[in-house]
């Protein structure tokens, strides 16, 4: 492909090819401080292609695909090329990664132990992880937590944090402008701005740790903390995993151990400030 770049994020290496210069340039800038892949060999190929030859030049329209693709993936405009590249990497992980159980979750680490947060898009898990990552925790990732099938450790996948809508201002107030990506206005999920994780998150991206607490956050409700039964936790985590079925028995064993060993709570909060206080309190009590 005309423009290409290789990136290593946590344990996975991506080769990203693009018909256009802009997405690759944006990636190169934001991932500049990530270590270069040791050799050229990538786990996954990501391709950003024109939806038709014509749409390369005229109203450019990006079809996201690669080793693993979705026939009905929605096309994106070139103005959102950076997001397309990020989604392309997520797509390959979600459909093709087999070396860990993938949990659609954010995770942060402190004192050698990991806090995992999972929930639907909009639950606040990304924002919470990003904020904790600015306040003394090590950000491990905002999209996927990688659960090791043998040791039960959580491994990081610290891509750029994808901040949506109101979360953009919250984090822009905490993180230096040099770590913020361009504003991508009017995407399918509203406005998006990427945040480069802090240096420690990148520097220690091959370092896993054992999980100590699982939270199911829910933004926009009066503060509340609820216990969650193990059966429900198991079921919600299978739904939050994109490769649980593909892994078969090892995935079942790893998830069973995770559910048995890691205390879990569902938490509601009306604002970011309250959420942080609540999480820090639960971490003191439970982890």
């Amino acid at each position, binding site marked *: *492909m005309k423009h290409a770049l290789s990136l290593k994020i946590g344990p996975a290496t991506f080769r990203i090819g693009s018909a256009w210069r802009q997405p690759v340039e944006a990636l190169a800038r934001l991932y500049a401080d990530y270590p270069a892949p040791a050799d050229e060999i*990538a786990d996954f*190929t990501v391709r950003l292609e024109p939806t038709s030859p014509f749409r390369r030049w005229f109203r450019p329209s990006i079809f996201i695909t690669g*080793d693993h693709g979705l026939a009905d993936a929605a096309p994106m405009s070139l103005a959102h090329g950076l997001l397309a590249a990020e989604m392309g990497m997520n797509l390959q992980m979600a459909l093709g990664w087999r*070396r860990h159980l993938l949990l659609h979750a954010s995770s942060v680490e402190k004192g050698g132990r990991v806090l995992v947060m999972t929930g639907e898009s909009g639950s606040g898990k990304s924002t919470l992880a990003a904020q904790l990552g600015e306040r003394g925790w090590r950000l491990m990732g905002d999209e996927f937590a990688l659960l090791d099938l043998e040791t039960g450790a959580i491994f990081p996948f610290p891509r750029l944090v994808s901040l949506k809508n109101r979360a953009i201002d919250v984090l822009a107030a905490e993180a230096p402008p040099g770590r913020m990506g361009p504003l991508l206005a009017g995407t399918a999920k509203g406005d998006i701005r990427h945040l480069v994780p802090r240096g420690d998150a990148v520097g220690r991206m091959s370092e896993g740790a054992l999980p100590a607490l699982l939270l199911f956050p829910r933004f926009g409700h009066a503060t509340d903390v609820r216990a969650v039964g193990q059966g429900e936790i198991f079921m919600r985590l299978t739904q939050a995993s994109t490769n649980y079925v593909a892994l078969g028995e090892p995935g079942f064993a790893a998830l069973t151990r995770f559910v048995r060993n890691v205390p879990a709570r569902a938490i509601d909060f009306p604002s970011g400030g309250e959420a942080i206080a609540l999480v820090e309190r639960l971490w003191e009590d439970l982890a």
Partner: protein
Amino acid sequence: MSARLLVRALRDPGGVAALDGRGWNSLIAMARAERLIGTLALRIGERPVPMAVRPILMDARADAEREARQALWEADRAAEALAGLGVPVVLLKGTAYAAAGLSAGQGRFIGDLDILVPREAMKDVEQALIGAGWEWVKDDPYDDAYYRQWMHELPPMIHASRDRMIDVHHTVLPLTARQTPDAAAMLADAVPITNELYMLCPEDRVCHAVAHLLADGDLAGGLRNLWDIYCLLDGIDPAALEARAARHGLVRHVRQAQRLAAALYGAGGRLTLWDRIVAARLLARDGWGRERRKLLGFAFYVRSHWLRMPPVMLARHLLTKWRKGHRPA
């Protein structure tokens, strides 16, 4: 760059030792795109490969094992659903190869479950499958009617809870196709795999695979089908195959498949001009896993329809599809 790199690696897996990082990236992307990564991983086996490649090949092997396990379970479920009907359940393609432990099944990607049943049993088979939880995929009345009137199979069905597709065939090629392989003979000579499951006899397995690759399809992803044929030809009696191919009206196609399999995966062989055009179509894949030679691909797409249907019917079909916004993949 063309898929020749992949073909060479399958033929001579020791040769991958010479690849650099770029070469590996190209090989892996091509093998994934052609759904041959599991086969490639098994062919490479324990040979030394770069550190970063090892886990990729291990994952591919594990995926292939899971595919096979899932496919066999699906075949078992279909056999169970059809047990009361007294018709043999003849497995076709990947599931048959996996169930019988054939070399063609090793590392093979297995998509849908394909079975062959007698045409007169179709109604009962359909009812039994619906009773066991399968349901229709297509909700378009034109497609449904088209399948029922002209195709060699029922419209595809999917199992409501397991999300796996089944294709129920009553013959090999669409009823409108130029060739008319003898499905009754295929059923009559099918061989048992287990108590409930059957597969085609060795010569028919080749004829069936050849019919799909060369007499029907537009050859997209055909390298895997040709690999199947290459494996299925191993140890087969050429005279018996020729006789069987004659019965199915596929002599020309079987001979061409033999030439192509030998040229691409085997010891080599002389190719005709037409063989070379087909080979060019089969190898149209670049180092990023993209399909190349779009025009050639489109020509083969049109040709596949031309072979399937008489001209007036083809025109009507393409017009209907076009009005519905269908584009060839």
